[in-house]
């Protein structure tokens, strides 16, 4: 029970701050409305979270290669521009599906979190779209507009270190 209250508060406080930042005033009516609205939203979020539909754990060390992301986005925009130019000047461009190795055989919360993070971060780069990760085979299906040799996955997200006794935390 205390855990649920903790999560509720963890939702409530940022929501109230967000509301106050948006209305940009401390008038009593606005503040009261904000407190009530944030309470409703925090309750809804906590109800969904307690259904336990999706468990994921997150490790900060996966973000070690995050600084490469903006440069990759800019580089991919250049690739897309070049592909558009080629497409318009008579050499049609087609994207391809590629299979990329991605070890993720453990079926626990940490792997789910890693899969979700890789999906979101890789799809942010314009040239690559993650279609899915097949856990059993340890591979990831991506679609690339301009086939880019090598693996688009940042190295810090490939490793599945830590204790691998498969225990669900």
């Amino acid at each position, binding site marked *: 029970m205390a855990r649920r209250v903790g999560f509720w508060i963890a939702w409530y406080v940022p929501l109230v701050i967000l509301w106050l930042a*948006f209305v940009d005033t401390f008038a009593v009516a606005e503040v009261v409305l904000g407190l009530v609205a944030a309470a409703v939203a925090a309750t809804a979020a906590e109800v969904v979270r307690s259904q336990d539909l999706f468990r994921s754990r997150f490790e900060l060390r996966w973000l070690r290669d995050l600084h490469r992301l903006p440069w990759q986005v800019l580089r991919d925009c250049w690739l897309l521009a070049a592909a558009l130019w080629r497409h318009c000047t008579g050499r049609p461009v*087609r994207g*391809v599906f590629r299979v990329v190795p991605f070890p993720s055989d453990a079926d626990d919360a940490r792997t789910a979190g890693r899969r979700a993070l890789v999906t979101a971060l890789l799809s942010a780069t*314009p040239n690559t779209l993650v279609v*899915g990760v*097949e856990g059993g085979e340890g591979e990831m*299906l991506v679609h690339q507009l301009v086939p880019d040799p090598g693996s688009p996955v940042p190295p810090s997200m490939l490793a599945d270190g830590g204790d691998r006794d498969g225990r669900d935390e």
Partner: protein
Amino acid sequence: MSLRELAVSALLVLGVVVTLFSCLGVLVMRDAYDRLHYTTPAAVVAPVAIAAAVVLEERLSAAGVKAVLVAVVLAVTNPVLGHATARAARIRQFGEWTVREEEREGGSPP
């Protein structure tokens, strides 16, 4: 024109050009997956440029904070939406999205 005004104008031009480039890409490409790739620059690069222009102009007032928030929401939701659309397109095409045999050796067109 001060340096700040020049920077604001340059960022605006960048945002508009990137977005129009995305629209052109979506129009010209022939395949749904290829069109999806071109939605990303308009949602990741352009909002950052425009929000940066707003912040340069307004500092971090209410307007600046809200513009940054909109840019963050756009940049975070577009990859998820692209992934969901690509997966839905593949399920629609093949019945399921899992890897097919001919795609294991090298890349193959969809």
